């Protein structure tokens, strides 16, 4: 990552892609962006950002338990994330999004998961370098096998999401009416949490448990700032995700600073720009104008 940057971008890219790990990073980053866009879009729409963040952080105990037990960290990520999704869904008022009970429950799950992760790390005995990798990701250490696994998982999650898309959209926008029309709102809610868990488990391995948010929330939130139309918004979320990942990999390669920093900064810059644009555009009818009691 000490290569010299020239303004001849074609040469730069050719130079960068002569290294196999950079090619793998671009492949994995592309898959992650395509996956995180739609899942994140639904997460933002459903106001489940906190749950998403919790599921992402659960990857830490998952991975550290796997390291401690000496099994594959992939298994650890998935087992812990899916278990946490079931737990969040099972806790009281889990279906009533936004209630204070739920926020306390999600918070408790998250804190306990982190504490468990800390325990596993201590038990294993000092791998603070590896801890940082778990938290902040190993974008540049991705193998071709990981890319293949990632592709398979992403395809599976996106296929299920596409199948559930329409009823999930209905249930997310107006759960009461959807429930009255016979849409299985609770089942969809659980299914979405599981999809979210699988996504975070996957993305965590690339971006680290802490920075997953950059890819799940920022492109989706940016897209929702710009448009209320679902199909267009989903496409925008994917496009922003790709832009963020590619630019940050490029910047990370040519600068001494970590890719995680670039990912979050570029993502946030897009979000801030979109927030600045929004007052000029028409308001989103639902998401951005919560029903308020008059002062």
């Amino acid at each position, binding site marked *: 990552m000490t290569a010299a940057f020239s303004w001849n971008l074609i040469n730069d890219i050719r130079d960068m892609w002569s290294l196999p790990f950079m090619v793998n990073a671009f492949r994995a980053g592309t898959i992650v962006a395509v996956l995180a866009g739609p899942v994140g879009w639904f997460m933002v729409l459903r*106001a489940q*950002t*906190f749950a*998403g*963040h919790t599921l992402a952080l659960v990857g830490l105990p998952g991975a550290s338990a796997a390291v401690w037990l000496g099994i594959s960290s992939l298994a650890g990520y998935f087992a812990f994330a899916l278990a946490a999704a079931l737990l969040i869904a099972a806790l*009281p008022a889990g*279906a*009533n*999004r*936004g*209630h*204070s*009970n739920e*926020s*306390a*429950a999600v918070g*408790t799950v*998250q*804190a*306990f998961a*982190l*504490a468990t992760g*800390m*325990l596993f790390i201590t038990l294993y005995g000092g791998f*603070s*370098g590896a*801890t*940082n990798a778990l*938290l*902040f990701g190993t974008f540049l250490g991705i193998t071709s096998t990981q890319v293949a696994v990632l592709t398979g998982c992403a395809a599976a999650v996106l296929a299920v999401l596409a199948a559930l898309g329409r009823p999930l959209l209905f249930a997310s*926008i107006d*759960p*009461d009416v959807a*429930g009255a029309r016979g849409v299985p*709102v609770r089942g969809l809610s659980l299914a979405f949490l599981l999809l979210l868990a699988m996504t975070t488990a996957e993305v965590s391995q690339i971006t680290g448990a*802490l*920075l997953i*948010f*950059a890819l799940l*929330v*920022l492109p989706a*939130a940016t897209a929702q700032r710009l448009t209320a139309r679902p199909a267009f918004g989903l496409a925008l979320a994917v496009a922003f995700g790709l832009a963020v990942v590619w630019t940050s990999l490029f910047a990370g390669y040519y600068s*001494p*600073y*970590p890719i*995680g*920093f*670039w*990912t979050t*900064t570029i*993502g946030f810059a897009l*979000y801030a720009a979109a927030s600045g644009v929004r007052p000029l555009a028409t308001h989103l009818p*639902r*998401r951005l*104008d*919560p*029903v*308020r*009691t008059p*002062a």
Partner: protein
Amino acid sequence: MIGMLSHPFMQHAFIAGTAVALAAGLVGYFLVLRAQVFTGDALSHVAFTGALAALAAGLDAKIGLYAFSIVVAVALGVLGRRGRPDDVVIGSVFAWILGLGVFLLTLYATTRSGSGDGRAGVTVLFGSILGLSRDSALLTAVIALVICAILLAIARPLLFASIDEAVAAARHVPVRLLGYGFLALTGATAAESTQVVGALLILGLLAAPAGAAMQLTARPLVAMGLSAGIAVASVWIGLTVAFHASWMPPSFTILAVATSSYLVATVARRRPARPFAGRPGRSPADTGSRGAETLRR
């Protein structure tokens, strides 16, 4: 017990831990009541970045912690409406702040001493309650007590504003100002707890005792007391266990006790059929005013 307390580092841990738990229990009650736990979560990560920023600049980590946490807390309130940030704003801002934290960690590791490896980051993230000096323990205790005092002073209007924002505003309670003030207190608490349980684990002390207390009683004053009590008990029991079973880190034992108290409260609570409880869900449009809805059910 006596043997444990004869060690100075355990005395410091108990002094700082008790005070921080008191503050976290009280602040946590309002966080849960106002459905702002996510804000607390975000601020704990902000504390991480603040501490690293100060370290990278060569300052004392405490200055960075407090200044950064409080400023970002108020900024989140400004970005949201009526001093209440919404979850997309929180998520976006703190994703970026975490990224900054990583950046600063790299900066710190490369510019400061060669031994400044990942350790600094890990300590900030997971806390070092057993490594507090006498002075910093006392300072922590004093700041925590100040937070408690301010919170108790504004408890009545804050409770009113949290339970029914509209009516409170109509009765000339400064709802927005209280919102900012409360966010600043939350920021200070997050900064404080960082030294005790670490940036990542603060949420446990903020959410679990308060969640448990609210499952057990609906009366605000009792719940506040209970929340603070459970938090303090978690710290005491957690420290004692960690002292005797030294293979477990104190952050883990403290949070394990807090989490079990939440689970026990959830199981123990008789759940009467409430009109809202059986509903499958609410529209996302409602989430902004959820704090006011909470006790209206």
